């Protein structure tokens, strides 16, 4: 019996050009465009320098800041009022003010203070921008000291050096981080939306009556709905992996069968969620809104953009209670770090539990008899 259900579902899906186009082309476009857009690396900070000094020292400082690659000089002026206008128009993110007689006073007083105004609406950018400036100033300061202090006047200071090593992503390439995460989201959206709309559509059209009056078993019906999307999900995932490889040169470090194994398990869970929503809804519009609502929460809390560690306890609890979180984490683990089956076992166990609960729930809630 299952065979006939599957045959029908496959034919219906693969015959619908619009849906197929959406399912196969959209993810590719998104996977190509999104990582380009979702570049969180903080760079290109708009810098405005208010130089009231115009001494060689001040100019050297300005030159070092722009040469760092983090900043884009959008204003070099002598009036703070101009800088303020740039700040308000969003044309400047940081304003560094160099006081009058900076160079001379530094020599005379042995100390000077610069003031830095940061547009902190975007907290992350502000924090890092300020940190970069401080670091560059320190380098600049050290260079000046080396130049001005006669050797021997001060004892050589003991040196401590810090040597960072960046594992898995030595050049701190943000796209390497985003691509597996976006792939996870795409698989989630395709699976969730299509399965949520499916049963509801049969309800709207009325064909579900004909199924309900047949002696078909409920779990066969749900299974028949589930498996085609499960195959489709794997196809989308495969396409995504290829795009990641061809466009971004990301080759999974870990075992590919393990990756597919996990995605397969995950698809069962997310499709179960979609089908469950579908059994509760009467119209496609409702199903879509409700799915959108859950997807939004899951994706935002899933650790795609922001680290899970920095969430408050309640939010972390919600995040862990969502299969999406685990998929995003495991995708990154296997693709970027080469994690093994043992490493992802806890996540797999949780996702499997979800798959079981959601699908059983969907079967129970799908009623052939009202």
């Amino acid at each position, binding site marked *: 019996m299952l065979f*006939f259900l599957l*045959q029908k579902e496959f*034919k*219906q899906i693969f015959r619908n050009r619009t849906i197929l186009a959406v399912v196969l082309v959209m993810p590719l476009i998104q996977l190509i465009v999104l990582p380009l857009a979702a570049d969180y690396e903080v760079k290109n900070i708009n810098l405005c320098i208010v130089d009231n000094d115009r001494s060689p020292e001040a100019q050297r400082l300005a030159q070092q800041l722009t040469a760092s690659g983090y900043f884009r000089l959008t204003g070099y002026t002598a009036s703070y009022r101009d800088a303020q206008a740039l700040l308000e128009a969003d044309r400047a993110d940081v304003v560094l003010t160099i006081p009058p007689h900076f160079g001379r006073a530094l020599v005379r007083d042995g100390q000077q203070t610069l003031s830095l105004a940061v547009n902190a609406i975007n907290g992350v950018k502000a924090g890092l921008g300020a940190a970069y400036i401080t670091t560059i100033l320190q380098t600049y300061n050290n260079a000046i000291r080396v130049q001005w202090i006669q050797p021997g006047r001060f004892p050589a200071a003991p040196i401590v050096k810090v040597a960072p090593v960046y594992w898995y992503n030595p050049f701190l390439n943000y796209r390497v981080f985003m691509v597996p995460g976006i792939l996870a989201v795409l698989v989630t959206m395709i699976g969730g939306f299509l399965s949520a709309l499916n049963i509801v559509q049969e309800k709207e059209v*009325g064909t579900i009556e004909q199924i309900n*009056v*047949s002696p078909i078993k409920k779990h066969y019906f749900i299974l028949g709905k589930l498996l085609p999307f499960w195959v489709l999900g794997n196809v989308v995932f495969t396409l995504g992996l290829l795009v990641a490889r061809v466009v971004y040169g990301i080759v999974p470090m870990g075992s590919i069968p393990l990756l597919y194994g996990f995605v397969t398990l995950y698809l069962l869970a997310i499709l179960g969620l979609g089908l469950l929503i579908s059994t509760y809804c009467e119209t496609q519009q409702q199903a879509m809104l409700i799915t959108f609502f859950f997807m939004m929460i899951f994706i935002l809390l899933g650790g795609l953009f922001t680290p899970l560690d920095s969430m408050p306890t309640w939010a972390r609890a919600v995040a862990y209670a969502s299969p999406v979180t685990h998929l995003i984490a495991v995708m990154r683990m296997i693709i970027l770090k080469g994690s093994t089956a043992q490493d992802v076992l806890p996540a797999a166990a949780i996702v499997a539990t979800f798959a079981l609960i959601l699908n059983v729930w969907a079967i129970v809630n799908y009623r*052939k*008899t*009202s």
Partner: protein
Amino acid sequence: MAQPIIQADKLTKRFGDFVATDAITFDVARGEIFGFLGANGAGKTTAMRMLCGLSTPSSGHAQVAGFDVATHPEDVKQNIGYMSQKFSLYENLTVAENITFFGGIYGLRNPVLREKREQLLTRLGLHDVAGKHVGSLPLGWKQKLAFSVAILHDPKIVFLDEPTGGVDPFTRRQFWDLLYHAAAQGITVFVTTHYMDEAEYCNRVSIMVDGRLAALDTPRRLKELYGAASMDDVFYTLARGAQRGE
């Protein structure tokens, strides 16, 4: 009379305060063409859905093909065919694919399934359009196809809910030929309709008014009973007293 194939005993369905079907009691014999009439909103569809195991009765009992509809709906479903008011084949599947699918979920297997499909296509003269999407067929063809699909698995009873809405008299006549053919093979036909000429074709007719069974007999006896010239007049006399409309 042998053991009736459908037995309804004070079958009732309530939706909140509203009593859609109010304690109806009747029997249908094996091989009968049973007409189930009533104005819109009289409770026909609700009663039929209960008999098909789609809806659980609020009270009362009904046995269909020897099984209780409340306790064994899935066994009932194994023995019946159903064609709903809303056309319910898959429009984006072809004629042949629909036949294969519905035959398949009723447990038919090749080669029987293939043979039945061929028979059906031949009988309806649909060989030429077997590969076409059902959505592209004219309504009359769709209805004949839907009926044939509903009896593909040789059910004991077939339930038809206003099967001939919206088609011309000639096509309706052809459709009824199919019903007679099925009845001749021993399939009990349970049909709701609004067309009184169709009511004349039935062996027995029941008329529902406001959720109750107002009359039940052969068309001839009903006409005698109400002193009417046609079923139209019988229906009019009964339905005039109805409290609820659409």
